[in-house]
């Protein structure tokens, strides 16, 4: 079912001309030492960086521009400069048992860093450049994992907390989102958004700017190179390109920094953040240890590596989904709408004794239209998840659903639900240590690759057996 909460919030935002909050709690950790990286690419050049602005939260940016990113030595110079900053940052985090966090302005910028990471770590005969690629890969490989805290986008972060009055795709322009968060005094938000959208906020410069400004500057730079211009003349050419591009990355950087103002100290932390922090730190340390050990970062996974990665992603998605509903009112509202939380009145609480065991049963009546509840599902009480119940059946009578439950744990610690009380039951809190246990089990199980999953191994030769005279009895 579509996210009704977000649809309603977007309609309210449109009506008010101002973004509306769609989260009650902060959805991820914002590392105070996080590094903001705003890259800019030349049109048609998807695997290089033309200009980049880097800095900590609240700090002025360091900006680096190359005259032409297609010139390999210039490009590698920029990458090494960026790499020195990232290396030092990672080292500080590692020394403190913490993890690094990189912020990009938008999904496009994060995607560009992903492409750069893939490209750089396969550069041949240039260890420092490979190293930059490997370090960036930590953040970019974490990005698709639910609940990751390593590579964040400001547009994504703001969308997780606020709904604008425009379409989801339009929220990829950071400048437009910031207008919805801080609309103009005259109330004409749409006009202000239209103006903001003229400003580049992605990773590519404006085509008019390319044609009228950048392309002539780059051409003149190459002409000067070819004509053997002296150092001072070349410096003029280089500076002209820097002066053209620096303001653009500086504006993207400034917009990204502005976004933090709408996140930091605006929301209490969500209940899962402490777990996500600890998990991310452990993943980072493991990643760095693998780099210390010289482990490669292949582009394509072996079946074994793929199994570990997909298991981690599935575990993360399930854990974050289950964990976010504890202590986050909006996440709870979404889960209620989606039918993942049962909310209703308790009736018919019964206690029977089976031997020495006490068995509590009760029924919850609900009018929820969307209910994803099946027999044998386990639920926990949102108020105190130590109390766990198993669904024994779901009966439907007109618009009412009656869910029959048996208490499976927490009876002594929490007590039985009371007749007539309104109760909310949802998926039990995630077991954050389960992934660790699963990885240990997988490592032991996959220590030897079966022939079925070895790409270069032939199936074992058939070993025929002598057949009996009669065939097995078959049932009609």
């Amino acid at each position, binding site marked *: 079912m579509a996210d009704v909460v977000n649809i309603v919030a977007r309609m309210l935002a449109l009506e008010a001309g101002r973004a509306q909050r769609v989260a009650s709690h902060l959805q991820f950790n914002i590392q105070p030492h996080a590094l903001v990286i705003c890259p800019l690419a030349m049109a048609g050049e998807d695997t290089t960086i033309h200009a980049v602005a880097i800095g900590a939260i609240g700090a002025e940016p360091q900006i680096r521009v190359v005259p032409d990113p297609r010139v390999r030595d210039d490009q590698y110079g920029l990458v090494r400069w960026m790499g020195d900053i990232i290396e030092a940052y990672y080292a500080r985090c590692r020394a403190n048992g913490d993890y690094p966090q990189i912020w990009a302005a938008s999904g496009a910028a994060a995607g560009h860093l992903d492409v750069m990471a893939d490209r750089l770590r396969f550069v041949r005969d240039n260890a420092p450049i490979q190293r930059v690629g490997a370090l960036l890969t930590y953040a970019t490989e974490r990005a698709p994992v639910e609940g990751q805290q390593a590579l964040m986008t400001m547009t994504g972060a703001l969308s997780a907390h606020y709904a604008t009055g425009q379409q989801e795709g339009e929220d990829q322009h950071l400048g437009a989102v910031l207008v919805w968060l801080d609309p103009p005094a005259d109330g004409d938000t749409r006009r202000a958004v239209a103006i903001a959208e003229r400003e580049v906020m992605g990773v590519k410069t404006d085509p008019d700017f390319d044609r009228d400004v950048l392309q002539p500057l780059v051409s003149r730079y190459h002409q000067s190179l070819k004509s053997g211009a002296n150092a001072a003349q070349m410096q003029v050419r280089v500076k002209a390109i820097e002066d053209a591009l620096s303001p653009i990355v500086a504006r993207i950087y400034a917009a990204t920094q502005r976004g933090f103002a709408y996140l930091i100290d605006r929301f209490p932390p969500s209940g899962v953040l402490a777990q996500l922090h600890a998990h991310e730190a452990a993943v980072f340390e493991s990643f760095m240890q693998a780099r210390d050990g010289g482990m490669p970062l292949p582009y394509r*996974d072996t079946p074994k590596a*793929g199994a570990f990665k997909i298991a981690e992603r*599935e575990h993360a998605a399930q854990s974050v989904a289950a964990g976010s509903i504890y202590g986050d009112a909006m996440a709870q509202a979404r889960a209620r709408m989606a039918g993942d939380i049962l909310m209703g009145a308790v009736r018919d609480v019964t206690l029977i004794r089976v031997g020495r065991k006490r068995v509590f049963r009760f029924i919850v009546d609900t009018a929820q239209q969307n209910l994803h509840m099946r027999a044998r599902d386990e639920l926990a009480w949102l108020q105190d998840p130590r109390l766990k119940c198993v669904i024994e059946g779901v009966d439907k009578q007109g618009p009412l659903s009656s869910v029959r439950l048996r208490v499976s744990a927490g009876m002594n610690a929490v007590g039985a639900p009371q007749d007539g009380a309104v109760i909310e039951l949802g998926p039990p809190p995630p077991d954050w240590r389960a992934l660790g246990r699963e990885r240990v089990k997988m490592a032991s199980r996959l220590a030897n690759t079966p022939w079925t999953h070895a*790409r270069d191994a032939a199936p074992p030769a058939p070993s025929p057996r002598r057949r009996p005279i009669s065939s097995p009895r078959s*049932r009609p």
Partner: protein
Amino acid sequence: MTQAAAAALADAMVRDVLSTQWDGVSALVLNSPPGAGKTGVAERLSVQGLALMKERVMVATPTNEQAFDLARRLGLGFPRLTFFMMTSRSLEIPPDILALANVQIVHASADLPDGPCVAIGNGAKWSWLDADDCQFDLQIVDEAYQLPDYRFHLIAGLARRHVLIGDPGQIDPVIQAELERWRCDVSGPHVPAPRALIARHSGVRQLSLPVSRRLVSDTASFVQPAFYPDLPFVALHDARPVRFATPGIAPMDIPLDAVVAGESLVMVELPALLAGDVDHDLADELVWTINRVLTRGATIEDESGVRPITPAMIGVACARVAQVNAIRERLGAGLSDVFVETANRFQGLERQLMFVQHPLSGRADATDFHLDSGRLCVLLSRHRAACWIFGRDGISRQLRRYAPVGDRSLGISDDPEFEGWRANMELMRTLEQRGRIYRVPGGSGRRTA
């Protein structure tokens, strides 16, 4: 093809499958159309392994429910043999399984006998088994197309030989994770286990069950070209006639009487309406029609003879849980035995009569979820006698409007979204061509109320 010839063809293929084990074939992928007796083959392979070959056999299913179902069938069908169910200690075991004297519940490898045995469990339980070495002679993976390859990887080393049985036309495994990383990998960890195995080892033996015992010929003529263009099959039964004791006079009786005339798959088209995830009017109409079938005294003639249709012989399947609930809340006490579920949950199940809601009905868009050919295939292949597809006018127009642009990758010839769109188009075109779309004015439910 006569029924006897079809039966002989089906039996011959089962013998071929059983024979692969005597030949010591290291891996077999057995493709099956709907209702061709997949689970029956799994049963026979298990029993052959245990009783005749004196082997240790493990059976893996995607879910606990499927494991219970197989244990139930083996326990009841072969009362003189003992079977084992490998489960986690916390799993609730259904009482009827506990009541089977020849099905023992076990939790660890040491609980199994040293010698020949058949142990059934879901894939997750097998992946957590306390032993990692090769414990079994034969591993049977039932509903193997629902098992992603990485889950198969976790259990493959437990046995020397493998038989992967599944329906390639049904819903792919549900994986809650971002999969872009493996998009270009034909044997990636997310790919259904049989496809990944064949991608890695193209020489793996492949067989196909050629006869559907569930679907009748008329339905097979729709389902086979739309969903199984590469898996030819025929129906064992030409028809299972449905008749009504009382003639009909309402507009909705026309599609009901079409089934009496031998049309096993018909579409009931209601006036266009954008309804979103829950279409209350369609739910009213559908439940009214179920009542109508029963009040007109429907009977079915099948292998058990002529029998009156009861609510327990009727199923309703929808794409979305919200619509399932909308249907359930309209079924009074008299229809409480009608089984209503989503397409995902209907996999592996069947009913004599099915009422299904077309996934694209009443929608303004056509997402990959609604276009999924597996989902539509499941919906249209659960019935043994007749299926009424309920939908809003405009599905064909909607399909034309949302023709997928194509999302293929180099080296991957599959394009699930396009395949789904193609299957949907093919179905709608065939229904229209063969005069199977019955336009009704709607409002039957409201008039009754």
